């Protein structure tokens, strides 16, 4: 395949990663933005989403589309409820202290991972996509008769991958609208800006924290459900996803949703392109190097504001 079509293929793969990453990192950014909690267990909620999708798909049966829809509804709700319960039973009891919550969520990470290993096992298992038709993509070349479109061999994607990109974009827009246009979003933003004053105006801050932790985990789980027909569900899949999510929220600016989206596109696309042309390891090395540069030269991230 020539360079142009090959680059387009790499960018499509990158766009799928960027979409899933943006969704997952939005949850991490929301949790940090509102609660100031660095949730080290966030990758495990992503893994739980994928694993639960497998369980739900196998329990429901009745066709791939119905099983997938059931998984997309049940898994994020179940993971969100589990996270909210973890918030109320663990994080609330340690007063959301920034250092102790890091240790607590590391503990949560291992608990979730090991319980998954004991119940789900060490195998990687797929979930059938609801639809998966192959779509050949056109390319162009200049010929004697001017610009001509043609379909190079191997330049194609699947309808499901395009769906993942579109679904992630719609969900992120929905989160944005929820935060800016609803009463619940206003309550969360007020809590994020000054939790003590939020309390002084009758906002039950601890309940808001539980809801935010649940929504953040639910978004990670939804990302896990979306990716499981492309990758397989495995009990260790949360590690890489967590690393990339942290890279994204640090580059974008901790707590900045707009920055998170831009950084997810940057990291996802560069990961896709570098992985296809060079190697996935080089992609991770460069992303980590970029984080180091951001931390040195712009510690607040690309879109974050300096603390006053």
């Amino acid at each position, binding site marked *: 395949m020539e360079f142009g079509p090959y680059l387009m293929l790499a960018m499509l793969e990158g766009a799928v990663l960027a979409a899933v990453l943006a969704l997952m990192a939005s949850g991490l950014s929301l949790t940090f933005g509102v609660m100031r909690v660095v949730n080290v267990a966030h990758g495990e909620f992503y893994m739980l989403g994928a694993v639960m999708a497998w369980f739900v798909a196998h329990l429901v049966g009745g066709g791939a589309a119905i099983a997938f829809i059931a998984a997309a509804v049940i898994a994020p709700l179940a993971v969100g409820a589990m996270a909210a319960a973890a918030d109320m039973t663990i994080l609330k009891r340690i007063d959301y202290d920034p250092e102790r919550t890091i240790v607590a969520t590391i503990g949560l990470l291992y608990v979730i991972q090991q319980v998954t290993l004991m119940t789900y096992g060490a195998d990687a298992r797929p979930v059938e996509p609801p639809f998966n038709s192959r779509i050949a993509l056109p390319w162009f070349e200049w010929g004697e008769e001017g610009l001509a479109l043609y379909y190079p061999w191997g330049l194609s994607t699947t309808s499901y991958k395009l769906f993942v990109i579109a679904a992630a974009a719609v969900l992120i827009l929905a989160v944005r609208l929820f935060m800016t246009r609803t009463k619940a979003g*206003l309550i969360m*933003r007020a809590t994020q800006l*000054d939790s003590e004053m939020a309390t002084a*105006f009758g906002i039950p801050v601890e309940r808001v924290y539980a809801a935010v932790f649940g929504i953040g985990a639910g978004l990670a789980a939804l990302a896990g459900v979306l990716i499981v027909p492309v990758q397989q569900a495995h009990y260790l899949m949360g590690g890489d996803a967590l690393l990339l999510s942290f890279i994204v929220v640090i580059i974008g600016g901790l707590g900045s949703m707009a920055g998170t989206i831009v950084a997810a596109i940057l990291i996802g696309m560069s990961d896709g392109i570098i992985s296809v042309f060079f190697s996935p390891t080089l992609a991770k090395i460069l992303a980590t190097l970029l984080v180091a540069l951001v931390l040195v030269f712009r510690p607040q991230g690309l879109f974050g504001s300096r603390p006053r």
Partner: protein
Amino acid sequence: MLRIEGLTAGYGAATVLRDLTLSAAPGRITCLMGRNGAGKTTTLKAIMGLVRPQAGRIQLDDTVISDLSPHRVPAQGIGYVPQGRRLFGELSVAQNLRVGLMTRGSGAEVQEEVLDLFPRLRERMGQRADTLSGGEQQMLATARALCLRPRLLLLDEPTEGLQPSMIEAIRQVILTLRDRGAAVLLVEQRIDAVLAMADHVHLIENGRNLEDFDAAQLTRAPDRLRRHLGV
């Protein structure tokens, strides 16, 4: 009627208020005065439930508010204008007011009443709170608290750092609220402002009651206040 009896409170191991007793009556302006670190702000925070009492009780009419969860305190009709305004800076003026309105489920008519007191805010409804001038921010902080339709209004140094015209505007609003029957508990350092408004003054030192003055005593005793406050 606000009654604080034998209140001891502080932060962690540090005790700031020691056996403090004071009251604030409806339709009256009660001032809380004292040197820096005397415990004035802590007293207001304790009323709001933001600092938990170690001993004593805080009662508003028949409700012991010191037994309530902190987020249930403002719904009793207590508006709080904190020192330094503490607006939700990234939210617009309208959204800041909406947070106040949500506390007691107040509607648009309450917002209109509040905006009638601060007409300048009407022109700034879509503007981010942290881009307002200092005076406008103080207006918004006061307006946000008034959105609760408070029967008790707590104000922590509301005229600090404001130009005279703004101080007068805030003073007029406080007097209006008093005339409408609200109890006003005001922390204020400026003796001239206190003498012009207060019906009663509680002077505290190191978190303890030092001396009380009623309106008649105040007019005769500004020198005693100055001596106590070291100004």
